[in-house]
């Protein structure tokens, strides 16, 4: 009783804070409010994530209060989205200073991340759809802010259309689910009694709609265009997009996990996500623009997150989406550092003793096998083991085998050990935190797991093959296709940012 009381009061405080921060964002829009109000606004925006941390440390009952989820997954996502939003707003205070849409950025950042956090709190299908729609609208408006530049309005158009498709698909799925179950509460709609009532084709239909709804924001092939074209958005907008919003699919699929049981929808998801991993990695391999490389990487990473979901590894997917979000936000925000000043000194001794490299490979295999044996029954464990073993071998080669002198090797060893330790600790922490979350994972058939593993290995193999066959026609064709997939349309490209000339000639209202 006591727990639920504190929870509900926390919930109320949180909602009040969120409303206050939204109001603060709206107040800032008024031209009479001085620009320096932004400093106050930043403090106000810091409050809701603080409350959510408090809530996160206090959850014990994985319950619900009214139409709201109050379990650790919900609070974790709320904290994540709001904290990223807060950091990006702090960044924008100086970074966007002088921009003509300065005030609007803060309002939209606040409202968009606020709406996203509400969407993850919603346990009621209607609320979830509503808030997720608001989030997508907010994002589209953010992309569109500088619409005087024709390429920006083009990007906003492409994004807006795809988002609408995604949202409508979600709406349809929810209405269908309601029709079938007669429940708007997610947990009741997906209760075992209700699930049994669902016909196979009904279930597949709903699942396919949900899959469509999630792969669009995750920029999965063939719906990746919007992310490719929206490189045109200002850096902080890209940061929020790649960190906080593309990964919605991971959360939604976790919430809808009881629906998925390895049917046609899961397979579709697996295929599209698998292709996207390869395409995304390929784009980031061939592209030379820093931000475009990041876009390619996001497509690949989101593909991986969806693979994890499809294989039933929901906690792994949540961990991945959070860490990836933080990773990508940082890389975007520091995109100004991508210029190297003078060359970094030449390559380390590649002729390093072959033995060291072999040792790394052996270590990778041992670690991978050991990891797999920890839970050989779970399908995802195999994939995870493969990746961990492979990464260990690669990083060992770079850090230890190529390390120069005793200093180099011992430092490399330390880095490797440190990274591994932190990795284990963080994962442990997340598992502890999320173990109470209710989700159902169905083990996928082993054949599917092996196909996924082969797909990933195939990607690596192509890379290795190409290193030896640089001048083959196959490489030329593959290369050019990957370049084409990563490039924006000619319509979204402007050889010179001519809108600035308009600024000089027409000015505007401050």
């Amino acid at each position, binding site marked *: 009783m006591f727990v639920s009381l504190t929870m509900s009061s926390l919930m109320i405080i949180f909602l009040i804070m969120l409303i206050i921060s939204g109001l603060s964002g709206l107040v800032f829009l008024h031209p009479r409010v001085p620009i320096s109000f932004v400093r106050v606004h930043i403090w106000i925006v810091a409050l809701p994530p603080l409350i959510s941390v408090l809530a996160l440390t206090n959850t014990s009952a994985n319950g619900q209060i009214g139409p709201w989820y109050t379990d650790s997954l919900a609070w974790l996502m709320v904290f994540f989205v709001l904290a990223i939003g807060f950091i990006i707003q702090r960044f924008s205070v100086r970074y966007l200073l002088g921009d003509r849409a300065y005030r609007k950025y803060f309002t939209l950042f606040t409202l968009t991340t606020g709406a996203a956090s509400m969407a993850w709190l919603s346990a009621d299908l209607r609320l979830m759809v509503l808030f997720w729609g608001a989030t997508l609208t907010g994002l589209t408006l953010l992309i569109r802010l500088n619409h005087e530049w024709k390429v920006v309005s083009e990007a906003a158009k492409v994004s807006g259309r795809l988002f609408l498709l995604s949202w409508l698909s979600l709406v349809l799925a929810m209405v269908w689910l309601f029709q079938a179950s007669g429940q708007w509460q997610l947990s009741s709609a997906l209760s075992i009694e209700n699930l049994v009532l669902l016909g196979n084709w009904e279930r597949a239909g709903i699942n396919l709609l949900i899959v469509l709804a999630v792969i669009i924001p995750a920029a999965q092939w063939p719906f990746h265009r919007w992310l490719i074209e929206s490189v045109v958005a200002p850096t902080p907008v890209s940061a929020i997009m790649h960190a906080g919003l593309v990964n919605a699919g991971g959360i939604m699929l976790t919430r809808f996990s009881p629906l998925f049981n390895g049917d046609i929808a899961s397979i579709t998801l697996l295929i599209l996500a698998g292709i996207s991993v390869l395409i995304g990695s390929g784009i980031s391999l061939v592209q030379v623009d820093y931000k475009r490389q990041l876009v390619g990487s996001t497509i690949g990473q989101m593909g991986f997150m969806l693979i994890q979901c499809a294989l039933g590894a929901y906690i792994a997917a949540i961990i991945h989406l959070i860490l990836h979000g933080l990773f990508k936000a940082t890389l975007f925000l*520091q995109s100004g550092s991508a210029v190297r000043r003078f060359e970094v000194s030449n390559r380390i001794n590649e002729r390093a003793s072959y033995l060291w490299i072999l040792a790394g490979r052996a270590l990778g295999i041992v670690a991978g096998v050991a990891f797999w044996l920890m839970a050989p029954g779970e399908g995802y464990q195999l994939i995870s083991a493969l990746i961990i073993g492979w990464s260990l071998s690669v990083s060992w080669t770079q850090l230890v085998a190529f390390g*120069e002198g005793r200093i180099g090797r011992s430092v490399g060893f330390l880095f490797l050990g440190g990274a591994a330790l932190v990795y284990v600790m963080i994962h442990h922490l997340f598992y502890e935190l999320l173990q109470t979350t209710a989700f159902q994972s169905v083990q996928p058939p082993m054949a599917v797991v092996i196909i996924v593993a082969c797909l990933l290995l195939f990607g690596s193999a192509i890379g290795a093959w190409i290193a030896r066959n640089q001048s083959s026609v196959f490489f030329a064709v593959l290369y050019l296709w990957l370049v084409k997939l990563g490039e924006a349309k000619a319509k979204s490209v402007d050889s010179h940012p001519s809108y600035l000339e308009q600024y000089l000639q027409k000015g505007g209202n401050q």
Partner: protein
Amino acid sequence: MSGTSVLMKESSKTKDSQSDFQEMSAIIAAASQVIAPLWPISTFAARSPWLGLEKQSFAGVASWLKETRDVDIYPSALMILAAKRKGEIDEKFVQRALQQWLDSNSFPIPRDEAERFCQAALKLEPLPTELLSSSKLEQLVAHLHELNSGSGGKFTMQPLSSSIENQSHERLINILDHHIIKWCKLYLDDSQAGWTMPNREKGFYRAWQRLIQYDPALSKNQRQSLKGWPEKPQTALKAALLALEISESEIQPYLEGHLLSLPGWAGMMLWRSQQSSAEQELLTEYLAVRISMEWALIHPYMPLTNERVAYKASIASLLASWLHWGELPMEEWLQMSDAQQQAYLSFASIFDDQLRRKIWLEAWEQTHEERLRQKMISSQYKTGHKKTPLAQLAFCIDARSEPFRRQLEKEGPFETIGIAGFFGLPIATSGLGHTHSHPSLPIMLKPQHKIRELAEEHELQLYQHRKQAVHSLSYTFKTMKQNVLASLLLPELSGPWLSLQMAARSFVPRRAGRFLRNLREGWLRKPNTELSLHHDDKREVGLPVGFADQEKVNYARQTLKMMGLTKNFAPLVVICGHSSQSTNNPYAAALDCGACGGAAGGFNARVFAALCNLPEVRENLTYEGIEIPDDTVFVAAEHRTTVDDLEWIYVPKLTEAAQEAFARIEAIMPDVSHKANAARLAQLPQLQSQLKKPSAEAKRFAEDWSEIRPEWGLARNAAFIIGKRELTEGCDLEGRAFLHNYDWQEDADGALLASIIAGPGTVAQWINLQYYASTVAPHYYGSGSKATQTVTAGLGVMQGNASDLLTGLPWQSVMATDFEAYHSPLRLLIVIQAPSEHIERLLKTDSTFRQKVRNGWVRLASVEREGHWRNWQPYTINELLNEPYKERSE
């Protein structure tokens, strides 16, 4: 398809004879004058975008650019009116210029009507739209013939693809640009991509020629048409030009039009072609690719109907301007004869928007000159006290040195000197353990020596290992990123660390930045280093390492003379280079020393100070009349412009007197720093009204990764003053002037002045024009908003999804907000303190400089013996030098 076969026949007919190639190369070389070479952003040294165009007048280039590219290089009306409101333009100069213009031109129009028209037009207000769109105007215009203005003198040519649209109403030239951007960035990539472009080692054209037949970005027909395209770029270029039916005489302007479409990428190709012999044909290859692709895109639309659009619209605006500004009643217009109407219209077309803003720009410049003159004259002769200084500090001519020097002089008996920050040393510098060397001198000079930083063998090795250990982290990051499997784990491995960094940089930017730097430096522990000053006999490829004995003396003497420091040495002479400090800023190099090729100037300062401390150099200098007392010690420091303080980088053992001076500088530095920062930060956009600790806030600007304007750099620069410090001492030049010490009495033959003008003078002019161009045409010569830039190929930045490789300064470096310019676009005013005869001699001997002044690329004034100010008007230069007057605009 049929096009190809015809082409093949044609190209085989015109056998690729050697002379043909040479002719084509000459045409390309001539065409390339319209662009300027562009170097990588990591050594962002200022460049004037109009390098090759100085043979023509500024006004001529302005109207040419307006016509060919619709790029306007006069300040916009809005900018001028804002400057007028701020009192930066004295309207009397506008009036004077107008009267002069009316006097010097004759028109068959009553003077009072002409003047009324001009006065109203000079208000720079746009014509009312309701008038322009009125039906009455339309009727009037319908009766008019096309204006025979006879402006067909200059021949311009647009790429053919700019006049064709495809089915979805996209202009073909945009599609062409899109393709070309892609090919350029993929080819030029500086090891950013995991997979490099196939066949890249074969050269740009060959790689393209191999790949284009597979490019899915082209339609099947387009790919087919380029299949079997010539192997050689020259042949391909000729074939494409022929297929596009460009006649021999049109080739050069046609190529110019194409080069100006993406001047940044073309400029980078041009720069690369000058770097190595393997790529010397790169610009030809670029043009071959571009024009071949153009042909592939437009050949379905061939033959082109050459329809010229009649410019009725512009006649309408000319007439409207008479009705509105000239207050000409409609009835009166209708009663005029055809010839009269023509005269009125042609008057309006001559007194056009560009001319009006030219008048305003010149008035702005004259106002600036007038105020500078008053400032300098009022300060002159009042500095009677001449104590022997405790220390002499030499700073770079950089405009940011001026406020710092002023504060320093106020705080004690210090003499400051201005000189170009490479200290006359034509060297390439190579930091400890680097294999790469950086040409640390003005970009138009070539290095003659290489100076290495050296350390003891064992220590160096350990240092290298420590450094490699740090690099191995970023290498590992990159390798994992480029590996399909490992890249999936990378976010989970590095995410926690990166988020820690993100949080720290966001909330405690100053401390986080300092902590990370200290951590790095503490780990690296750079050993004490020596410089390879002495000539090394070991023959190395390339530049000789170190200086020969006589060279050391020569450089020391030459630079001391340049500084005007040949007697009265203080016990301590501080040679100050300068550097900036900013975080997460792709334009960091733009804030460094322009005279050092876009790098920090500390290395050069150290080399020069060390040279002057060598006993053998001092001994030899004595024979030449420069006696450096034994007490005197030269030390080197770096002026850090973002935080306005001095960092010592080379302090040898000091004598007692030198130690005293050194201690004194250290003691006053916090105060100097505080005041200089307070004054400087007041100019930067702030969110607080009160700054309690300016020095701390300046450090925040330097360390904050979200800071979009770490400092103003050289914005607002407008003058280069060459003369004694007494001339400017005590006046607040607002950090807008480059200062170079010069004493004409010590320069009987004018050699010093000539070298100041040729080296530092050109650097200052390039910096000035770069700021100018980035302010007046930010989309074309600037590099757009920093927020929407992406670094590409490790070479430079593009806007949005893709764009030209942008060449100039970002929008935020010249604008205070989207509404308000910070930089005033004024052409550099060079003020030389010397008698007229000296200036005349300079103008006579230095034809490049003469051309710059005459054609309005810089302004020139001089301060004569009695402090009399003389302005050297461009149009007086020719008469003065008794030269036959040549057509100025061409």
